[in-house]
């Protein structure tokens, strides 16, 4: 292989040294140490965790501030933009694997571990009145019911589906440089997301207080909260990011041809949407 002396003229933007990535890492370390101590009953862990969390927020805000400054300063061109797009796509792929794992766990419990336990000698059942049923009631021995999919979850499905439409609408107006309509549809998306979260929180509350569906109520409860909880966390992150984008738009950031951050967040939002559809079908309904 030989390198021609002819060189290209295009230049890639390499940011200057930044203290925030390392700061962020050590902040995350504090959070990890704090939490590890806290779950083992050392109250001091809580304070370490809070310091870590505050430093995380600080580092992230500063770091993203730099990114926004560079973006608005015109340092990113087509070439850099393509890196960001590819990066976001591969990040979402890794998130797909994360959720796929939990769906795999759901499948395993339903089709392997519970039926196998049921196939054992009846003297060895894990708890009294254990039956090969899904959703399984678990060992708590209290009354147990699952969330009715056709009430709040169905409504939540509608909410998230429409939020996917509204964010697409917002993108449309961004491309046509109609700020008013853009702000309206983006704000509508955020509002739908917030209502979803409130309903979801309410559902968790009812699950605990009325249904007897808890983290401890056997594998169905555990997986139910793992999947819906992780999803809810993603919605929360999505709402925060959409809000940040909204603030930037109000401040006059982005233009019709240059708005990767907006698109990245909307990809993320659509991803979270699709995950919810799968949740609705496999966790709530079937």
């Amino acid at each position: 292989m030989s390198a021609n002396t002819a060189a290209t003229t295009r230049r890639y933007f390499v940011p200057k040294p930044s203290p925030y990535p390392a700061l962020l890492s050590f902040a995350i370390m504090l959070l990890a140490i704090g939490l590890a101590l806290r779950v083992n009953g050392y109250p001091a862990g809580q304070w370490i965790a809070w310091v870590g969390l505050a430093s995380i927020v600080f580092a992230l805000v500063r770091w993203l501030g730099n990114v926004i400054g560079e973006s608005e300063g015109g340092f990113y061109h087509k070439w850099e933009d393509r890196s960001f797009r590819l990066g976001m796509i591969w990040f979402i792929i890794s998130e797909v694997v994360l959720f796929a794992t939990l769906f795999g766990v759901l499948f395993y419990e339903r089709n392997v571990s519970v039926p196998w336990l049921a196939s054992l000698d009846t003297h060895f059942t894990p708890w009294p009145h254990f039956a090969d049923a899904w959703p399984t009631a678990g060992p708590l021995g209290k009354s147990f019911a699952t969330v009715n999919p056709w009430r709040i979850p169905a409504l939540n499905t509608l909410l998230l589906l429409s939020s996917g439409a509204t964010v697409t609408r917002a993108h449309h107006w961004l491309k046509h440089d109609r700020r008013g309509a853009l702000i309206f549809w983006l704000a509508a998306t955020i509002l739908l997301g917030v209502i979803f979260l409130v309903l979801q929180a309410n559902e968790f509350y009812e699950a605990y207080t009325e249904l007897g569906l808890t983290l401890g109520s056997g594998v169905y409860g555990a997986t139910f909260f793992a999947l819906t909880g992780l999803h809810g966390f993603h919605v929360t992150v999505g709402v925060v990011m959409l809000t940040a984008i909204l603030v930037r738009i109000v401040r006059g950031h982005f233009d019709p041809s240059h708005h990767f951050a907006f698109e990245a967040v909307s990809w993320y939002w659509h991803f979270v949407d699709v995950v919810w559809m799968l949740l609705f079908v496999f966790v709530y309904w079937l």
Partner: protein
Amino acid sequence: MSSAITDLGHHHAHDEPKGLARWLTTTNHKDIGILYMLFGLTMFLLGGVFAELIRVQLIHPANHLVTPEVYNQIITLHGLVMVFGALMPVTAGFANYLIPMMIGAPDMALPRLNNWGFWLLPPAAIVLVLPFILKLFGIGNGPVDTGWTMYAPLSVQGGLGVDFAIFAIFLLGASSLMASINIVVTIFNLRAPGMALMKMPLFVWSWLMTSFLLIAVFPALIAGSAMLLADRHFGTHFFSAAGGGDPVLWEHLFWFFGHPEVYILLFPTAGILSQILPTFARKPIFGYRAQVYSYWAIAALSVVVWAHHMFTSGMPVAGQLYFMYSTMLISVPLAILFFCWLATIWKGSLTFETPMLFALGYIVLFGIGGLTGLVLADAVADQQYHNSFFLVAHFHYALFGGPIMGVIAGVYYWLPKITGRMYSERLGKLHFWLTMIGFNITFMSQFFLGVAGMPRRIPDYALQFAPLNLVSSLGAFLLGAAQLILVYNIARAWAGYGQPATSQVWEGAHGLEFTLPSPPPHHTFDEQPVIA
């Protein structure tokens, strides 16, 4: 292009931070590559200390050097530190340092993210070993002691060290995912004009596959570890039959990650080998295409064979058969790699500088690792060999014989490029021979111990195993001591001693990195070359 870019992107040397601040804040792929490699070397030494402690404990039966609890902590940390602390970071260091130079890129695609990916590692290492120190203050009973595979229910019941290990896994996972995303994006977006995918050096290909695998499997371990944390503290029953769960589910999650992980460790060094062999055989690489396709085949197969680690955990016969045959199938693309390596050196004008010696050692030792893997892959035979020292010997031939030998070969190969100084060839050769001899004494004896029935992960053993354990321990001391030569050779070149290296370094070396001066300037390819 606008001059603004030049101002921010090519800031002048005088506003670069100095000293520690430089390393903490750097966005330069060479700096970050060096950080990764030095971190990996440090962890290699730490993991080595644990290894020597294990062998001191096992030097004779009824030894009371450490308590059984501490012994378990040492073997667990040895495994975790070597895999996640030494091998993965060191190969990521090679990737960071070399890939941009090999494909004619100005830097990595996402330089700040790159820095973050590295700096998550020291915190992860601290979190992992912190319980050693906490114990001194009466907090907890030391670090994780479950074995690196962290099987439930032991890991559900273990002490606080398990929680620290879980959090360390979260940090390591974030770091690996970030590094992988960065590498994929760099390869897809930053290649110089004319650098088609099928023209890329095989090392670059090997890291592309490694990154794909990391993105495809590390999230599964993260999810599994989070579930383990929940089982330990939040009342869930994912891994406990008492609530309808299953401890074997952990094994599935762990090995869905864990088996591809062995190829994650292997791939980059297979790539290194394919850079080194043509250089010292003075022949072009044989079967470039075949090797790329083998990479794809290995990567694809590696995610569907995981339960060969679970033949004794209880599985329907159909499952045993499937995992047995699919595992054996992987040896086909692996054998193609071996064939290409041998064909590359076949009838070449060989010289035996240290990198070449380690590369040849790799082929021999890793060959033994692969063949004994086939023995273990036999679901019936594995009932006997599983969790015996035969298994321990297999994966040390596979992991030290392959990846570690490959990394050492790579270090000797590119050290002159990185430091601008040649290492001592005499000491390099000595290092190689002592390593070869020490390694085979240490681990060949363990095959026999395993066949004779000695189980792994025990601090004491029956008298009949005493002679071979003594042999193995003596070999391990030699092997450990030999690695100090490597440290010396690196330090010597680093400090600026030794012959100055030319740009090409090796007579037969090809590739863009060898067109640059040794050491290369801080920023290379601000203007991309056009590849003919």
